């Protein structure tokens, strides 16, 4: 899109020509992708949390709603939380209409993101396959398949031999402990370069005048006499704001308690790991609930493996070893050729999980304070959609049709969007 390139600051557009031109000056003339400004005294909107969702929220507030007096406050470095710790899977094949609408909204935005941001986020629509290993799972899978299909979203059912064609390294021997009985495939689904999403949104938002302030930790909320939000206390002083949107992922409960209320959220460890890089051997993303593992191969050649969450609360960004151990056994079981490849690096994130495995996009008991959290294991794929509808919620002070089902009130009324089946494995 041309629009944002005429932004407040105005930066050179990225392209092959720009690379060639800059090569002549030894790449010494590239400008910073985003500024590092000092915080102002007051902003119209403050976004707490400089991950993908927070940066996307700021970007769309500026881009769609014309609000440019925005600060994004990040306690560490942008994209340093779950944005940089996930396994980069993007899909919209959920179970309930409400979820499909939300994630499909995101998927559509992914499809144009690189061009819109003029930043290659390497959204690779290589397809995502979900496997079924029992009669019961096949039944549940069919239900999800039909729900997705009738929402007008692309989805296909695959037989084991069709899966084998797409994923030659998979073991479809019917006599293994968890035989592959079938799968569903979403071809438009895939992966993206996770860090690039944060950077791309940061650059785009910055271009429109948004202040991205790193190493700025929120330590409290200040409220006016009428109870409405007045601003945030930070390690760099008080910063006033008309509205505050919190997008703190794993730390949502901590921030909510600062603001004086509780959220139905628990923070749990989630682990992932990559192998050493090898030449391409799997071109699709494949997930399996029953054996608790999912796999894809990065462009660099690393096999990216994801596990299930631990069951206990933790902010340690590390999980228990037995989870990793099981993941690797499952990897060898389903993909026997991986046995001699080596695990290179493992890491953990903090996932904020709701009782119904669906997110919270909501107003709160504090007027002018909004929360976007509870994405559990599904946050990365939602990034643009989450930012887009959350910006809308903040700008209009009411949820749009996509966000409405994800309000906090559902825990009072009982109208949950129970995605445990669809999100049964972390992904």
């Amino acid at each position: 899109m041309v629009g944002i390139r005429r932004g407040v600051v105005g930066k050179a557009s990225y392209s092959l020509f720009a690379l060639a031109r800059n090569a002549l000056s030894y790449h010494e003339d590239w400008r910073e992708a985003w500024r590092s400004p000092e915080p102002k005294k007051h902003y119209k909107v403050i976004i707490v949390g400089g991950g993908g969702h927070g940066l996307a929220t700021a970007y769309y507030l500026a881009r769609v709603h014309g609000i440019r007096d925005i600060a994004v406050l990040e306690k560490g470095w942008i994209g340093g939380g779950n944005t940089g710790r996930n396994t980069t899977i993007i899909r919209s094949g959920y179970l309930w209409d409400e979820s499909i609408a939300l994630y499909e909204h995101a998927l559509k935005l992914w499809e144009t993101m690189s061009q819109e941001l003029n930043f290659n986020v390497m959204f690779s629509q290589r397809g995502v396959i979900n496997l079924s290993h029992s009669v019961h799972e096949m039944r549940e899978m069919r239900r999800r398949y039909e729900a997705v299909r009738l929402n007008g979203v692309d989805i296909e059912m695959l037989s084991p031999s069709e899966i084998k064609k797409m994923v030659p390294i998979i073991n479809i021997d019917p006599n293994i402990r968890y035989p592959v009985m079938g799968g569903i495939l979403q071809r438009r689904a895939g992966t993206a370069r996770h860090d690039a999403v944060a950077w791309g949104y940061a650059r785009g938002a910055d271009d429109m005048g948004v202040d991205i302030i790193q190493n700025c930790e929120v330590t409290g909320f200040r409220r006016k006499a009428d109870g409405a939000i007045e601003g945030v206390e930070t390690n760099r002083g008080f910063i006033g704001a008309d509205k505050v949107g919190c997008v703190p992922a794993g730390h949502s409960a901590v921030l909510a308690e600062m603001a004086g209320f509780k959220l139905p959220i628990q923070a749990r460890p989630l682990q992932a790991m990559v192998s050493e890089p090898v030449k391409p051997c799997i071109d699709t993303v494949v997930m399996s609930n029953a054996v608790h593992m999912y796999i894809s191969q990065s462009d660099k050649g690393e096999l990216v493996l994801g596990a299930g969450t631990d069951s206990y609360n933790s902010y340690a960004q590390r999980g228990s070893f037995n989870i990793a151990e099981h993941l690797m056994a499952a990897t060898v079981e389903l993909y026997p050729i991986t046995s001699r490849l080596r695990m290179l690096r493992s890491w953990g994130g903090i996932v904020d999980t709701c009782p119904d495995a669906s997110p919270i996009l909501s107003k709160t008991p504090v007027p002018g304070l909004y929360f976007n959290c509870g994405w559990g294991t599904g946050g990365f794929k939602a990034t643009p959609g989450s930012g887009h509808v959350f910006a809308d919620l903040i700008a209009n002070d009411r949820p749009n049709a996509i966000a409405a089902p994800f309000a906090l009130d559902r825990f009072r009324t009982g109208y949950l969007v129970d995605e445990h089946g669809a999100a049964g494995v972390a992904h």
Partner: protein
Amino acid sequence: MQQIPCPWCGPRDDWEFHYGAEAHVARPETPSDKSDEDWMGYLYLRSNTKGPFRERWMHAAGCRRWFNVIRNTVSHEVFAVYKIGETPPPLPGEAPAAPDTTER
């Protein structure tokens, strides 16, 4: 891999346990008196403390007893273990609480 000290069986790997989240959340005695708001609180709202946290564990692979632990959710340091019904020890840096007779 954390070690959770079962008050009976001793320290065991964390996977031997079933996790019960925040401790001292009693089921209301007369639920029918409770508002929808209150019931939401009982069903879903649990503290999610970053730092020393009173929480419940059950030794699923062993004696199957529930008990309480004070554990730092950041460092995973375990400060105290106490049985159901016992007075909760103070959190690190906190003054001892008066004996609690209402909560189980």
